[in-house]
């Protein structure tokens, strides 16, 4: 039940991008390049929002720099009918699942993204703020898939801190009891704001949690795109085959601040950051692609520039999109406005007219 596999994170690429195991089957070169590009899009996007926040053009943002392999790897194995749920830091997974950067950016302007900008439902629940709550939604989505015999699989992401919440543990338990087709991915980035992983739980590994709920668990190097992809794909396949849930712990690192409101120098050392910078997930897959001749300097330069430009373009779209009227907060409380809300909205509008 609890083996060495849970002591050492599963790895396919070493720090120099050398393949140390066997290549996961059936991955095309195009896919590899696509994921690599997606990692850059993720990084550029996150950095862009940080920059916009500094200019007062975005709300508080939680950067995911350093976590791109986990983000892309956890969503890459999914089909369009599948679901992803995640916290504010899972934007990369959502992009991989198909949610547009424009849709995500619009949210950072301080508004819920409207339907016309979201476009087709990509089955990504809204980025979750209340820690760990979405893990139960993930299991519920999966239970519905099973009840409806729909063959949909759910990837439910959360952070290391989230594992301390009752909800996360209840989610694992429900997943186990109902053999729900869900993959619970704990993105262990070492910190929950200023609280280090070691103070979050006395267990050496969060993946140990699985056994207590009868849920098989995997531990994986979260900065190794191929390893994350392989482990999650196996778990997704198992789930789709009706073999139930898997808990996956990806070991990664948040290179940036917790959010734009956080000052990480208060609680962590330069040495620690340096240790992890060497393990940058983008560097690693980049080297692998170069070694395999799937990418050269020129192509890479072009890809990176294009990714940055694409982010800029999407951000532009979001920033040009109309914002809701001042009374927009009355929408979507219920499907239909209740009489009281209608009256309050009327009053609000009258007052606003009066003020003009």
């Amino acid at each position: 039940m609890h083996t060495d596999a849970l002591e050492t994170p599963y790895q396919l690429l070493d720090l120099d991008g050398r393949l140390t195991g066997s290549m996961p089957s059936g991955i095309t070169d195009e896919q590899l390049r696509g994921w690599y590009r997606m990692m850059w899009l993720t990084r550029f996007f996150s950095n862009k929002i940080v920059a916009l926040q500094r200019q007062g053009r975005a709300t508080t943002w939680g950067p995911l720099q350093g976590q791109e392999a986990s983000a892309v790897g956890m969503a890459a194995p999914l089909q369009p009918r599948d679901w992803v749920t995640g916290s504010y830091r899972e934007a990369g997974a959502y992009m991989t699942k198909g949610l547009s950067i424009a849709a995500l950016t619009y949210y950072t302007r301080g508004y819920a993204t409207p339907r016309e900008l979201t476009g087709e439902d990509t089955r990504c629940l809204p980025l979750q703020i209340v820690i760990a709550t979405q893990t139960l939604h993930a299991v519920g989505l999966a239970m519905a898939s099973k009840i409806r015999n729909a063959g949909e699989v759910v990837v439910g992401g959360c952070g290391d801190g989230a594992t301390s919440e009752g909800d996360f543990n209840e989610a694992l338990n429900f997943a186990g009891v109902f053999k729900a087709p869900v993959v619970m991915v704990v993105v262990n980035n070492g910190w929950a704001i200023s609280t280090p992983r070691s103070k979050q739980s006395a267990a050496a590994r969060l993946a140990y949690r699985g056994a207590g709920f009868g849920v098989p668990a995997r531990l994986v190097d979260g900065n190794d795109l191929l390893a994350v992809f392989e482990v999650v794909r196996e778990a997704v396949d198992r789930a789709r085959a009706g073999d139930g849930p898997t808990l996956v712990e990806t070991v990664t690192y948040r290179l940036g601040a917790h959010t734009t409101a956080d000052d990480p120098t208060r609680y962590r050392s330069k040495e620690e950051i340096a240790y992890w910078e060497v393990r940058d997930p983008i560097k690693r897959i980049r080297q692998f692609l170069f070694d395999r001749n799937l990418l050269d300097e020129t192509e890479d330069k072009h890809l990176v520039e294009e990714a940055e430009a694409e982010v800029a373009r999407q951000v532009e779209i979001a920033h040009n999109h109309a914002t809701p009227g001042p009374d927009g907060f009355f929408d979507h409380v219920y499907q239909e406005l209740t009489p009281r809300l209608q009256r309050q909205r009327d009053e609000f509008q009258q007052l606003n007219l009066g003020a003009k």
Partner: protein
Amino acid sequence: MTMTITRLTIIEALNQALRLELERDERVVMLGQDIGKNGGVFRVTDGLQAQFGENRVFDTPLAESGIIGTTIGMAINGLRPVAEIQFAGFMYVAMNQLVSQAARMRYRSAGLYSCPMVVRAPFGGGVRTPEMHSDSLEGVFLQTPGLKVVLPSTPYDAKGLLAAAIDDPDPVIFLENIKLYRSFKQDVPAERYTIPLGKAATIQEGHDLTIITYGAMVTVSQEAARQVSEQTGASIEIIDLRTIWPMDEEAIVASVSKTGRAAVVHEAPLAGGVGAEVVAVINENCLYSLLKPVARVGGYDTPFPTPGLEDHYLPTVPRLKAALLKTLED
């Protein structure tokens, strides 16, 4: 088609409503603690698992947040789940999933995702249950926008309101008063019907005073009104809110504007309760019609007492009578 009518208790009416929904809409599923083989601790789901199978009606682990959290996921992903919380007092355990999640999914996603789900829970005093089994929570949900709160007082209403709640596109808290569960029977059509949410029922017309109430306090109000009318000749109107939120303010205002006197009665504590909101609605809309202060009769502002003292805590006919008589004074 002839209309079949049978005399049912609230429990039987609810069971019938659930059965009809399970039959007509395969998206409807039910989950909760001990609702399967055991049929729920009050037997509201009796026989449903046997009839519809474990895929549609199933027991969960003992975890209220887990129940509501997974119910949200199921509601988003194509089902119409009806969750049972074994006693309403345990909704506090799931409060976050109810308030920050179920109530806000539509809002947060600008309408992309929604939670057409019902959370059923028994509540209410007078039946000597253990701690937290009798607490009335409806007042709490006034401060937590995005939910609807339904609270039937008769078998007929229970059946029609539950069908409407399951039909509703938004999350509905459906509170079932334990004392009323088996206390009386009423004619209930066998067919499915719905009663619109958000509409109060005027269950007795009158022109001297309006009682606004719901749940188990409806019968207490009826009896107090009867005695007071007998004693004073006053003609008393009684409004059963049925849905606490959205509240049928129109019905309240129309009645109090007519009668000029009002009392609001519930089991829940007074402070910030439904009664306070009703008083505020009256203050805003028909203060000038008011001849006397609105009487607020409710649970006292203490925790729900231990079984040995609960009868003293709950509003009684004498207590309500005293309030009505005072409100009827010149």
